[in-house]
């Protein structure tokens, strides 16, 4: 179980785990709950260059479509095939097995702390 207080967050309801120059990205439990049961995940290919704030993937539930925004500028180094095969992992373990992509970056933009993100969602 990932300690959510050590993660950073975006206003687009992504969580970001920083390890060296790599950011692991997923969507928060709050976002997963709002989406409902996730039935389809589309992720960028490994090697894709992404720009912070741009849309790089889609997370679809039966009811709606959520967009995955790149939280940092860099290159996708890994994607979670497990979540493409079993999209329900986004709901069942959003901070763990439901991770989406890993991106290497040169510079870290300002992100939200756990308390700042909690204030944003009111939870």
């Amino acid at each position, binding site marked *: 179980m990932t300690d959510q207080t050590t993660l950073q967050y975006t206003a687009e309801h992504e969580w970001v785990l920083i390890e060296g120059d790599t950011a692991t990205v997923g969507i928060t439990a709050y976002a997963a*709950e*709002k989406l*409902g*049961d996730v*039935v*389809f995940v*589309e992720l960028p290919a490994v090697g894709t260059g992404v720009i912070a704030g741009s849309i790089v993937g*889609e997370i*679809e*539930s*039966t*009811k*709606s*479509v959520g967009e995955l925004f790149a939280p940092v500028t860099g290159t996708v180094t890994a994607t979670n095939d497990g979540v493409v095969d079993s999209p329900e992992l986004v*709901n069942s373990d959003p901070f763990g097995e439901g991770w989406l992509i890993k991106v290497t970056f040169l510079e870290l933009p300002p992100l939200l702390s756990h308390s700042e993100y909690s204030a944003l969602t009111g939870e």
Partner: protein
Amino acid sequence: MTPELTERYSPLHQAHVDAGASFTDFAGWQMPVRYSSDLAEHHAVRTAAGLFDLSHMAEIRVSGADAAAYLDYALAGKLSAIALFQAKYSLILNAAGGIVDDVVVYRTGESEFLVIANAGNHFPALEALTKRAARFDVTVTDESDDTALIAVQGPNSLTILQATIGLTATDDLGALRYYRAMTGAFTDVPVLIARTGYTGEDGFELYVPINQALALWNALTTAGADHGLVPAGLASRDTLRLEAGMPLYGHELSEATYPAQAGLGRVVNLAKETDFIGRAASEEGPQAGSAVLVGLVSAGKRAGRASYDVYRTADAHTPEGMITSGALSPTLGHPVMMAYVSPSIARLGTEVFVDVRGTRIPATVTALPFYSRKP
């Protein structure tokens, strides 16, 4: 026109909070969108049973010597022809032949009917029904604030109702046919028990005074515990009705939609001997070439959603249709959509393309419903 600026709550609201529901705004009401998983709730209704709170819907009582003749004038169908405790799906049309609301009508007496309107059309429906009553000996009473509606839907529904402590019916519930109703009681208050629903499964809808709604909800929950009953939210209700090919007002139906376009031509009774609001326009019918409602299926997992464009070919510039509802069907495992399209691409089996956020996905025109329960 919109007196409600504040959020409204069902009489069952606390039960939903206690059950861990997420809420969504529906026509000003805070209603459960899901309790845990909308997929699990959907599958429960198809295989066992689901419990729905539909207390936001509007109940309008029509009574008086002219009640049957009045409804023949106010609605598109011939309500005078239905038997006591029969239910009928009907439409409130405007003078131009468009749809003010789609309703279910129960005949609760020789000169008494109960009209169930959509929550989002509570006031337009009430206003139309009230205005149209002027020259009839009839009283139109809005009972929405006093009435809760609880639906039990799914193959185990009958067993659950029969096992519910305190719920009694005046006759054998098992012999009650689809689109029929009977009176009953819960503890000491009257309940209208109808074999109707909006899921494509067997099921019942129970109209109960609000002060007994929570007790009835709890009794049904207890009775259903051994029969796979789960509380189900509006998210699953939407995917269930979509699979069953049932139109949803605001998506497939509107003031600008003719019933014939929506495949509801049969609901407008032009053989009726008497005049009704919307009759002249309905006789004319929609303009030649007007879009018609079709079902679409596609492969893969990405469903076209409401408002997405439909094209004749992969590279056509001009859309010839628009999706009104769409989802990855939980039961069928592939996307299902309803769309209004040009008649020239409406033929069953026609290959069309849906623009899913910039990607054109091939889809096939298919007959509605997408899903029918086995008899």
